[in-house]
């Protein structure tokens, strides 16, 4: 079942008389029950898309349906179905976690009694009981993030949208958040999250879409996307021996499982099909040629390679 579907969803702004197309046309669908990652460099249109999906921005054109409801026609009903945690979070600093949660529940029309019960549930589930009655401005970054997440979950939404949920979090809180996202997902919540961390998308998301320059450039499971990139990369560092380097190069070029080879100084970079099987063979060949290998590195294709292939740029460079 599809829980979120967009067709050519677009947004343009008029900035000083000039038309800026922030999102040129996003078409994607998110299945109920999955963790869907929305990946892209800053300025690619990630945040604008998120703001359209959360009813904060009115799309210029295109269509979107969330939980079967038309986003453009019935934004109010869409708001009842979705939970949203923005990058800023948005908890009221002067209020405690409990007060924030109860008020948020009241926003959804939950009765005061039920709001109180739900707040207690969430405080326990997110390990906030100890600090439940302190003003949330005194919380640490990680505690604050837990409260933000609880606020998005207060009405048990079917679809939870997270905008850069781990940005600026310490590693421990980040690991906790990953676990929490997996737990929520296991309990049946569909998660749509933006991120510019490749490892996060890789580890957490069952499917993802990469956006660049206002358009989806590729969509699929992390594995399927990475499979589009041919081969693993092996990098060998050799002890400096001028002539022998060329000997090794000649030797390796005869091997059919090696797709390409680059030789520079003492480093040889190879692209092979199955790196883990090819590596022992290659090491044995070099050893037989009496050349000493000093370092070995095997790298599998990353989502960064996927991005590089699709856009011609590295995501890491674009993000800066």
């Amino acid at each position, binding site marked *: 079942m599809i829980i979120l579907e967009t067709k050519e969803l677009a947004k343009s702004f008029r900035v000083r008389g000039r038309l800026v197309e922030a999102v040129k046309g996003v078409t994607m669908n998110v299945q109920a029950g999955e963790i869907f990652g929305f990946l892209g460099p800053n300025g690619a249109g990630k945040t604008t898309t998120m703001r359209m999906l*959360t*009813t*904060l*921005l009115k799309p210029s054109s295109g269509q979107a349906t969330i939980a079967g409801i038309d986003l453009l026609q019935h934004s*109010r009903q869409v*708001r*009842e179905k*979705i939970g*949203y945690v*923005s*990058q*800023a*979070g*948005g*908890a*009221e*600093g*002067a*209020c405690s976690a409990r007060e924030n949660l109860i*008020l*948020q529940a*009241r*926003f*959804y*029309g939950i009765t005061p009694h039920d709001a109180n019960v739900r707040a207690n549930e969430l405080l326990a589930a997110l390990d906030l009981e100890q600090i439940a009655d302190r003003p949330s401005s005194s919380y640490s970054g990680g505690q604050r993030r837990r409260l933000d997440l609880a*606020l998005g979950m207060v009405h048990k939404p079917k679809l939870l949208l997270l905008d850069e949920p781990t940005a600026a979090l310490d590693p421990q809180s980040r690991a906790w958040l990953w676990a929490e996202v997996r737990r929520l997902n296991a309990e049946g919540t569909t998660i749509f999250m933006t991120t510019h961390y490749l490892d996060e998308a890789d580890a957490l998301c069952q499917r993802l879409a990469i956006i660049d320059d206002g358009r989806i450039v590729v969509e699929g499971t992390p594995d399927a996307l990475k499979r589009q990139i041919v081969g693993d990369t092996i990098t060998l560092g050799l002890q400096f021996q001028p002539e022998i380097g060329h000997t090794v190069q000649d030797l390796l070029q005869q091997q059919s499982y090696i797709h390409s080879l680059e030789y520079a100084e003492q480093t040889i970079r190879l692209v092979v099909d199955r790196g883990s099987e090819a590596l022992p063979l290659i090491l044995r060949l070099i050893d037989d040629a009496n050349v000493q290998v000093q370092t070995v590195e095997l790298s599998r294709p990353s989502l960064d390679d996927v991005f590089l292939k699709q856009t011609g740029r590295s995501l890491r460079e674009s993000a800066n």
Partner: protein
Amino acid sequence: MQSLRDTWLLFKHYLTMTMRNPVMVIVGLFQPVVQLLLFAPLLEPIAGTEGFPEGGAIGVFTPGLLVMLGITGSLFVVFGFIAELRAGVLERMRVTPLSRLALVLGRLLRDVTMLLLQALVLVGVAWLMGLRADPAGVALSLLIVVLLGLLVSSCSYAVALILQDENTVASLLNFLILPILLLSGITLPLTLAPDWIRNVAGVNPFAYAVDASRALFIGQLEHPAVWQGFAVMGVLSFLGVFWAVRSFRQGVA
């Protein structure tokens, strides 16, 4: 119905927040009270001169201070609001099914309530200093102050949503506040002013509020300044609230 329920919910919330940290409310009262204590006595000698309105020094000065309280107090609501914008609080609320109208009305109701409390304290202090005004007139002039507060608060929110930056807002306020106050005839009545200043003040809506309040304080409920003041403040506050509601509905970063 939902708008009413949500407005009440947000009003209670904002009121609790203000009561928890009432510094701004007290600071807002400080200036008019000091003016009353330290400036009103200076007016005594000129209260008898030709052109000075009826009502004596304190009777003329207090209604002016009420208008000043309405302007300055309501302008400064934007600082808390911009901090809230930055923390994403409003954005979080906008993704819930809360009525869009309530997002504005809840705040405005809180602002007006606090303004009314401050105005009552101010009138109380003036009374202790010897003010003897027409009670019905005072009540009606508080209504004018409420309309004025609605106008200034809602315009402040709309402007804050455009500028979204404390520093820009602060310089804008500094730029506007003194001419507005002087051209309203708050400290010294405009009846003492040369013609050209009176003409400029004729387009200053706050001058109408001051004139109406002064007439009301001396019990001249049928004075033309009264209905003019109500008309100007009524129409403008309606437009102001309309502007704020529109701004809240549209883009909020």
